[in-house]
């Protein structure tokens, strides 16, 4: 099932103010893949999912499944599942009953209730009511229940965000393998970049209702097109420079860049893409030991640079150093402002 979203828009009024929750949003989700939409809270992620599920109506734009538009189909006939942040299990049914009820629409279900419970490792908890389950168990139950209805696409709205860190990690891995077994096409939204990068086949960064960039987590991390994406996926140095072909002139000398360019550009360099050498250009102002690496702050005139190296580099604050790039700097696109 391939999901296509084209130029989706949704605004609403809140306290007399117009909120453009989703703006010109387009996205393609390949069959059987997990797409993660990453964005800060309030960026329109949840509204987007409600639009796809049919719980809200878009102002304009189209949503289609395998090239068939589904915009006018009510949510209960759309075949798109939605897992909420928390507490979506029905309080008056046992776990087993919830799954059985979700399954009851199908004449020839793909999985039986027992299989689903087993896949989720919840067979022992089948007779429990939601209030007798822990937060993690409830979320797992909600995901199993959604899978039971055999959605063509499963949407998940920050499903792990209310859980504590170790549990979140474990559940995340479980869910990914569950989706692989069931070949589920899914979209998950989150504000947790670690979660986004770890799980996604396709990662989309969303901000103020717009999609900033989409691609594999690696490509987005290594080649962000603008500073917002770069900053959202990790620490980044943004440096103003003057490009000439495959090099750019900065205040501390020429740097190689990843694509040819001319004129004023902004460069993105991840802190771990620097190496430190004995030298004169930069002054070390701060050093933080962070376990797996060491974080350095360097200044040269107006410019401040963040560098991450392994623990073997032995410099001290107050010393002067030079820097070298381990890979070309990334030229950000002009439109990013």
């Amino acid at each position: 099932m391939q999901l296509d979203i084209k130029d989706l828009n949704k605004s609403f009024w809140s306290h007399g103010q117009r909120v453009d929750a989703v703006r010109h949003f387009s996205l393609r989700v390949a069959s059987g893949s997990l797409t993660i939409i990453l964005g800060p809270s309030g960026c329109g992620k949840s509204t987007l999912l409600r639009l796809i599920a049919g719980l809200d109506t878009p102002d304009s734009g189209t949503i289609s499944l395998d090239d068939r538009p589904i915009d006018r189909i009510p949510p209960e006939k759309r075949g798109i599942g939605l897992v909420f942040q928390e507490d979506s299990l029905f309080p008056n049914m046992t776990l087993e009953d919830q799954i059985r009820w979700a399954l009851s629409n199908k004449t020839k279900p793909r999985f039986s209730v027992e299989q689903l419970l087993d896949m989720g490792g919840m067979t022992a908890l089948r007779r429990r009511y939601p209030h007798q389950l822990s937060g993690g168990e409830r979320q797992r139950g909600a995901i199993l229940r959604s899978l039971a209805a055999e959605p063509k696409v499963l949407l998940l709205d920050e499903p792990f965000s209310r859980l504590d860190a170790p549990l979140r990690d474990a559940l995340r891995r479980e869910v990914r393998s569950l989706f692989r077994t069931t070949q589920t096409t899914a979209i998950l939204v989150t504000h947790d970049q670690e979660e986004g990068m770890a799980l996604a086949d396709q990662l989309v960064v969303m901000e103020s209702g717009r999609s900033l960039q989409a691609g594999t987590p690696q490509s987005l991390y290594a080649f962000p097109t603008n500073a917002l994406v770069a900053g959202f996926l990790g620490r980044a140095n943004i440096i103003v420079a003057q490009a000439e072909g495959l090099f750019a002139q900065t205040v501390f000398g020429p740097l190689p860049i990843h694509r040819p360019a001319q004129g004023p550009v902004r460069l993105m360099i991840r802190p771990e893409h620097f190496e430190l050498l004995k030298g004169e250009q930069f002054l070390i102002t701060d050093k933080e030991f962070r376990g797996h690496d060491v974080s350095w702050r360097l200044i040269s005139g107006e410019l401040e640079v963040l560098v991450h190296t392994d623990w073997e580099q032995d410099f001290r604050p107050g010393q002067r150093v030079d820097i070298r790039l381990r890979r070309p700097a990334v030229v950000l696109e002009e439109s990013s402002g």
Partner: protein
Amino acid sequence: MTIGERNRFRFPVWGVVFSLLLALPLLFFLLRLMERQTADFFYVLFRPKTIQLVFNTLSLILAVLILCTVLAVPIAYLIGRRDFRGSRWVTALLPLPLSIPGYVIAWSLLSMSGESGIIKDLFGFSLPSLRGLVGAALAMSFYCFPILAINMYQGFRELDPRLEEAAKTLGKSRGERFWQITLPQLWPSMLSGWILIAIYVLSDFGVPALMGFEVLASAIYTEIITSYFQDGAFALTLLSMTMTLILLVAFHTGPHRPQRRLARAADLARPYSIGNNTAWFIVFFSLAPVFATPLVSLGYWLGQPSTWETFGTYNYLVPALFGTLQFALPGTILGSLLALAVGLISRYLKGWIHELPGRVLLLLYSLPGTALALCWAVFYLQLFRPLYQSATGYVIALGYLSASLSLGPVRTALHAQSETWTDSARTLGKSPREIFVRIVWPGIKPGVVSGFLLSLGWIIRELPLAVLLTPLGARTLSLAVFGYTVEANYAGAAPYVFMQMALGLSLGLLSSLRRTRDAA
């Protein structure tokens, strides 16, 4: 600003249909009122008799407010700010008078006072007859002072003691602290209690009718009885409705209790203890007359052999009981269904217009009973003549009234149902009907049942609609109590009062038992 081509406007069908359906009697009243823009009508509206009625109504409101304040404030202060042995009992018993209809208290006051009253018989001295303003004000206050007391109790509980302590450290005297700190905090509770009581006084028909003190609500009845649905009845109905509307607007726009953040236990006013004797002295003098009045009369009359002699001859207790239930049960069932529909509309459909049906119900509930009865009568006479003074017509009118009473619990129950559940169920492929049956209904059932019990308890005491809309010759408990009392046959009314109180108390008990069970 770009509005997408497909930002379709959906006509709020359900909100509009239900608002119209519920407002039907009111709309027909207004329609007929339009036709009456005649000189005669305006003459009736402004003649001295009308002005006298408005004056009487206002004096009754004033008298009841004064009496209620005297009865309610000391008790509210005691249970809100002070601690004494048995204070919980007082708190629990406080709302009880609200389950005894005002006209029963009127019956009881009338039978106690006067030259041939119970007091004379028991103690040898006689109270002056309580007919008129004093009796009406007493009967109403005994009935509705808990409204003010409960409001004030909450006000006292929510007083922030730190403010008073701060004032103390600033060297303010006791008097300054009361006028500048305590009273301003209590004022909203006081005012909202007063407005609710004023709305009630304006609406009550039974008490002024029995006490022979003519106010707008009872005069509407007299007008209808003497000159049918003519200018007089219309003018008085218009006047009383306007006054109710003004009060409702005042209630919704007036000063409200500040929305307090959830108080931590330590923030709440700490009750400090008071001598048990002082407390009980105050409690006794406030509550004893209220509770004793109906009980003493009832006990006295049920103990008189003459009561049972009369009763033996004209016994229609069982027919009256069945008559009451025959109207009240279907009326309350209809009311629960209406409340459920109105609740579902306002909970699950978006847009302010879906709030409208609920507002209409509350308006109907606040209107003077006789004014409402007139609206129904006008509506039936205009559109379905056979429904006027028919069992079905009365049941429908009761249904609307009962819907306003059930709406509160139904709404609370609906709001406890998370939207996540219904949204989840939809994305699981479930139809709205399936979702209602499997998810929503199991969750709200207790709320619907307690709304049903609550409104049934109220509906079996209903009087003004019964007086004007029941079929001729119909027998109900409230009509019997009213009829006998009008004839000053207090002994005759006693068995029916007993039956009514027994029914009301058992329903109250049942619903509070259910509440504690659901809470557990």
